[in-house]
């Protein structure tokens, strides 16, 4: 019974994260939303791991956290570049390449 609550929480977090990515115009907030999704996944993993008291789940979560950190670093670097070149981090203006 306990598991469902966790899964539901993770699913909710996941949807909020996705919503954030799709709607927010500022690159920073999109990055944050992605972090949100990744954390939702962590909850999932840990919940499953706990259910079957198998260490794999938490190991997987650890890896996810490490990778998420790396990604955010790179993400921020790229957004910084964007700011330096365009003076704004509004994703809507980024449409030079299309068609």
């Amino acid at each position, binding site marked *: 019974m306990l598991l469902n609550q966790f899964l539901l929480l993770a699913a909710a977090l996941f949807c909020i994260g996705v919503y954030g990515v799709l709607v927010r115009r500022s690159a920073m907030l999109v990055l944050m939303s992605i972090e949100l999704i990744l954390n939702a996944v962590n909850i999932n993993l840990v919940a499953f791991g706990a259910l079957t008291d198998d260490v794999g789940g938490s190991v*997987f979560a650890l890896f*996810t956290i490490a*990778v998420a950190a790396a990604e955010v670093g790179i993400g921020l670097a*790229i957004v910084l570049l964007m700011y330096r*070149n365009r003076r704004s981090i509004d*994703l809507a203006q980024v449409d*030079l*390449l299309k068609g």
Partner: protein
Amino acid sequence: MLAQLAQQTESFVRPAIDWHAVAPELTLLAVGALVTLLDIVFLERGRRFTSAVAAVGLLITMVPIVTLALDGNDRSLFSGAFVVDNYALVMKALFVLSAYVVVLLSANYVAEGDYWENEYYGLVLSSVLGMVLMASARDLITVFVALELLSIPAYMLASWRKRDLKSNEAGIKYYLMGVFASAILLYGMSLLYGSAGSTLLTDINSAVGASGAPSAVVVLGIVFVVVGFGFKVSAVPFHTWAPDTYEGAPTPVTAFLSVASKAAGFVALMNLLFVGFVERGDIYEPLLWVLAALSMTVGNLIALRQTNIVRMLAYSGVAQAGYMLAPLAVASSVPDTALSATVTYLVIYAAMNLGAFVVVMAVARKTRSAEISSFNGLFSYAPGLAVAMSLFLFALAGIPPFGGWFAKFRVMEAVIEAETTSGLVLGVVVAVNSVIALYYYARIGLGMWANDAPDGDLTPVRLPFSLASALILTGGVTLVFGVLPQLVGDLTQVSLLSGIGG
């Protein structure tokens, strides 16, 4: 306190490592480290030899791969999470060699640019390391780590030209879509882990493969995983990033993305399909059928209208991904043929596409533009290049005697061997699509031969040594695979099922 800690860890027993199996990865790691070290030590002066070191390093990594191949028997470490079998070795060789060609491509391209050059090779090598790892990954965590290891450097490579808006935009788009897709993939993996209780693909297969209707969690898991890799492979509807990123990114990086990272995507997808949920064919076959048909048709249709050669090659890549997905759509009925068909296609596709990019870069050196019209009259001032480009284009279109025909033949063979109506329909779709594709390939060929050069200047194109050698390598491979397909046939006669059985 420290002792207590140490005491707890005695119970931790170090897993036995078969160093020979891990040799390729280690050598790559060493080369990457060396390049970074050189960059730090020599700073500016290092510009000249970093690319040479990277190239030589890649060739050195081929040595352990070849020894492992000669050794012949499959090896498995970490209780099956890391497997080195023929299939893995072929893919590792493919990644390393395509990386080698990309390094050849970028040798003077990057040098001519005014950006800091050395990190470029470091990133490329680390990305290749990720791909090589992916080839042997048979465990969710390893797959995920390998995927991220090859993607993150790729995001940076995509936005390599810091001050150029287009490269920056390419980087943003690739990054955001990439991270979003891997998030979805991760979510799917977590569900799979949940239902199987272990991250090992073989365990997942036994859990997921239970007979009877699969639970919603399993279905969702599989779909999200396939979506994740669908992005990587640029299958429609997850392909939208590809054209913009290819156009924005520097051309060698585009070549790298379109060949190596797409191949890595396929490797991951195949690992999961053939090892992870091989019994669950009833779910992923229709899924992949839809993706394959969509990718082929949409990719080709959009490519008809392109005016920029790189965007056209992007969409052509999307269509080729569709062709490669086709055998996977009948994988459960004819697993071995499907696998070897896709692997063959990957190998030949790598040669053809890299060759095409070589010529694109060579022409860009003179015309300074990637527009298709800039190719007009190429035959009049650079007949060699024109013939080479025609060779690659008609290979991509699947016209014998160039390599592509055998790749497409193997795909059609797999699809027909399945003897299912969906297989047959997919075969017809492949046939129709190869005709649509032929239109835009032939149109460029036409332009090169029939039209006259833009504003008539006929100064011949001077090829630097590295570009020339890359051209000869890829051209030779494409022609040889076309005329003597048996070579690539022996190479790609692989099977993943033995992994589970063995």
